[in-house]
């Protein structure tokens, strides 16, 4: 669903941008819906990425601690 190129950083930046646009109220409702839809996609992406990273990191840390403990 998401381009392979998209990064958390880019996604998050886009989110920030969208939020800024909306805040400025210059965006029309037509566009708003579209923006919100995009934001929802981005948020979803970031959350997934975050979760994935968290899981991976926790695994590594667990491993690190495990190594420490184990040896």
């Amino acid at each position, binding site marked *: 669903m998401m381009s392979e190129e998209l990064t958390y950083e880019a996604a998050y930046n886009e989110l920030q941008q969208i939020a800024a646009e909306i805040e400025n109220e210059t965006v029309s*409702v037509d566009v708003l819906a579209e923006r919100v839809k995009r934001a929802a996609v981005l948020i979803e992406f970031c959350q997934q990425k975050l979760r994935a*990273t968290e899981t991976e990191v926790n695994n590594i840390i667990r491993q690190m601690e495990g190594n420490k403990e184990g040896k």
Partner: protein
Amino acid sequence: MITSESIKLSALTGRIQQALNDAFAAQTYWVVADVTNHSYYAQKGYHYFDLVEKDTASSAIVAKVAAVAWGNGAVRIREFEVVTGQPFKNDIHVLVKVSVSYHQVHGLQISLLDIDTNFTVGMLEQQKQQTLVRLQTECADFIRKAGDHYITRNNQLQFREVIQRIAVITSGNSAGFQDFRHTLEHNRFGYTFQTDTYFTVVQGESKAELVQQKLIDIYNSGIAYDAVVIIRGGGAQTDFLLFDTFLLGRAVAKFPIPVITGIGHQKNETITDMMAHSPTKTPTKAAELIIAHNKSFEDAVLEMRQRIIIRSQQLFSTHYQALSALNAAVINQTRNIISIQKEVLHHYHHTVLHGSQSLLVKHQRELMTVSGEILSTPRILVAGKRNDLTNLIANIRAFNRLYTQNRRGQLAHYETLFKLVSPDNILRRGFAIVYQDGKIINNAGTVSPGSNISVQLHDATLTAAVTGKTTHDERGTDI
């Protein structure tokens, strides 16, 4: 007148006797007179002489009387001679006590009863003093008086160490000379002497010149006499007026060889004695003086010998002691040096042994300390590093959790924001979207009653026609 009455001579002499007796009997007189025509009858002990008085100026005889002394008077004369040293003889001036008598056969008689010794002594003393004064004045270069004695050239001479060669002036083989020689020759020390005798008459004032001549002979002999001894002829204890003469006094005082006198008088010193080097009372004493002088020399020599003996023995003893002390000092100090060196060596021995051992112990201790440090510290170091690592891991986990939380928070914020602004949500709260000609309008400008619009609500879209229009004040709900 021729036939006048005559008397017998005896009658006359008797009358003279009677008259003189009447005038002089039991009377005595002290008379000053000179003696002349003296003759002495030794067997009877009678002195016959005249008493005369001379004119002081012309020496002419102004009075003269014959006198006699016997019995007591003769005794008194002998005493006088002994006391004064002056023989009773012609030309002496005397004070005599006399009595006057008349004898019918012998005629007028003056008898000497007594003679005043003191008068003559005084006279002689006076003469002697005059002579002494004369000596001092005329011979001042070798005679002077100091206190009550006289300093003469002769008595300033020093005796030689030993008096051995002697010139003796004496008269004949007088007893005095015999005494002198006997004493000298029979001295108990065995000293020998060489005596040369110069015989002369040493009696009578008039012989002074002879004595002086003998002194000159001695001087001219060229013999180095140690002393000249003048001995009086001896015999009678009288007649040494010779020795009070100016002539002899001067000769003796000036004589270059010490003069010893042995004149043998009992009372006053004669002028010769005063001028001589060593006056003695008698010839025997003169000899004894010489012997004593030599004895004192020998004593001095013997004392020196004793000193040399004692001192040389002391010297040996001193040297022995000094040698012995040096010997002891060398021995003791040498032993001392060796003993000190032994001790010092022992000390160094000890120092080297103990010092090196304690040095090793010290190094060992140091090494232990350093190696202890080196061995114990790495473990601590490693433990510290491990601790650091553990902390780092904990930090990373903690930081990670925070990091994820923050990210999650950020996302949640956006989620909420977008939910809030999403059109669906707005419609659900009662808002509607108005479309005119398929386009959303956000003002009523283009809308007028009768226009067709469509209104989209939450759950449906309504198509409607505008029936009225009221323009709002822009205020109100705007935030």
